[in-house]
């Protein structure tokens, strides 16, 4: 078992554990931190799956951006409500039933499935970042543009929602 393999399973374990504990944790703040842990380990797994660029994006945008924003939100709401950030559970039984059975189904059938059969081209490649960039400008230029519009819309939306809060206060 090589080091890489160990690392792989280690990060898998970490991610899984973080995900699991997210279910049980009661504090929103800890939850956010656990999610960061989870995302970081996933980023590591990405690297092991030859997706360095995705991994970097994951760390930068997700862990660094999104979750910071979320934690910010947590702080903000805590401040407004003035309540402890402890979260109650509800629908526990139904939730466990649903997600548990889904997990069972998925894992059973994933193990049944032979994905190797569908392999297109066994070219173990090391995707260069430039090929991603090239792709973004050629094959994926439209999604790229659309993503831009999407971001713009999200921005406008968030701004509208936020701005009305202010106007309400006045």
């Amino acid at each position: 078992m090589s080091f890489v393999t160990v690392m792989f399973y280690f990060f898998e374990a970490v991610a899984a554990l973080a995900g699991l504990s997210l279910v049980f944790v009661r504090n929103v703040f800890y939850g956010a931190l656990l999610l960061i842990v989870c995302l970081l380990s996933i980023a590591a797994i990405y690297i092991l799956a030859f997706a360095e660029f995705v991994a970097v994006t994951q760390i930068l945008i997700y862990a660094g951006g999104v979750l910071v924003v979320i934690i910010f939100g947590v702080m903000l709401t805590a401040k407004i409500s003035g309540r402890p950030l402890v979260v109650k559970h509800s629908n526990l039984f139904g939730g466990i039933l649903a997600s548990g059975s889904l997990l069972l189904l998925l894992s059973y059938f994933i193990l049944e499935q032979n994905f190797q059969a569908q392999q297109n081209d066994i070219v173990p490649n090391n995707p260069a970042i430039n090929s991603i960039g090239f792709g973004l400008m050629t094959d994926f230029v439209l999604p790229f543009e659309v993503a831009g519009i999407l971001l713009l819309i999200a921005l406008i939306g968030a701004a509208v929602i936020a701005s009305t809060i202010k106007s309400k206060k006045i």
Partner: protein
Amino acid sequence: MENDLRSTLDHIFESLLVLGPEVILSIGILLVIIVGLVKKEHAIPTLLSLLIFSFSFLFIIADWKALAEPISLFQGMLRQDTFSLYLRGLADIAGILTVLMSWRNQESQRNLSEYYALIIAAVLGTHLLVMSTNLLMVFLSLELISISSYVLTGFVFDKKGAEGSLKYFLFGSVASAVMLYGLSMFYGFTGTLDFTSEVFFTKLYPSQTPLFFIAGLMTVSGFLYKIAAAPLHPWAPDVYEAAPMPIVAFFSVVPKLAGIGVLTRFIMAINLRGAASYDWQFVLGIVAILSLTVGNFSALMQKNPKRLMAYSSIAQAGFLLIGVIAFLPQGIQFMLFYATIYVVMNFLVFIYLQYFEKNGFVSIAEYSGIGKTFLWPSIFLLIALISLTGLPPTAGFTAKLFIFSSLWEAYQLTGKNILVWLLIFGLLNTVVSLFYYLRIPYYAFIKNRESELKTNILAFENLFGFVLVLLILLFFFSPGLLMGWINKITFVFVIRYPLSVIG
């Protein structure tokens, strides 16, 4: 490499030219926002967005005329064909109607330019979604619709609005996450994102494992959520109740068009030219039956017209699905016909719901006797509701007749019992739907009230409504006008499958 790149860029450029309507809409978003920053008058963003939609629509007509063969754009990201052109045109019309409705509602509206920008964005998303042949594009354009919708829901800016937004957002995000998981599985099965490509078929064909079914179901769930089909409907009533009236009308139409469009394409793809080992007809049949039942029965006890229309739209989603379920070119054409009529009649209903809401009638019980004070609006509303029920002489009847015909034809070809059940269920549900559709006219005409409100017969709504009523009647008496167009739609996907395989 150099040549490759050049040809790719040329292709992109050509694609962009074909994509005129979308370009116009994208520019429109920016324009509306910028203008909104500069000018504070209400009328300007309204007129501007009206113009944008009209241009887009004109462009679509031009495209329609120019189009000979389906074109693949951006290396299989999108497909320009008559099917998508038709739905896009319909979405544009819905956009125009929404803007017109909003015009009558704008004094209560703030942040108008953002409001219109979001509407345009949602229409843009619809455009892209119905053209998408690529899993990534499906996801992105769906999100484009969703995110603008989340924000639009809360445009009343009150407690209810915020709540509606939140609910829509949470449900929508989960649904798209589930869909995404399904999409990722499909990528895994085939290695391609283009679900119309030959590779997709050849790779998928041998791997029809249960996982394939799960993935398909998850993906379809995402689309079903967009058209508010049961069991992915529960967001609809709350959202409809919370949102402002033009937006409700918009929601009841545009995301449905988008969802049903992409669902049609996708389900044809994973039906594997009729060779799928899983019976997608059955799946959709169950969904349709559920939608019809849940929608109609839940609508029975509603007291708020908006919620009532929400449940009605759930049931109507079931009817739209019936057209798809036939898995026949005619079925899809009839579905488009139904969708067109649905746009007209739903807008007709909402125009008057808004009109009455503005005059202070909010719950159905308050509609008592408005038939006397608001004669014409009540009559137009009645016609719209009759059409929704599906009684002659309205186009709603023709549309129902058509989709049930295609269902019967499908039954004749396949002999599947689920189709007969669906037929019977669907038609019997019409009887149930009568109960609640007629509740509003029932209160309006039969209950009495003492009121001496002065009404303006020449109100904008009446003019607007009159045109739509004429359309409803016109399409009943000569559906050929519309079907003539729809008949030109050669739905490439289905045609390619020999019917014998299905039968």
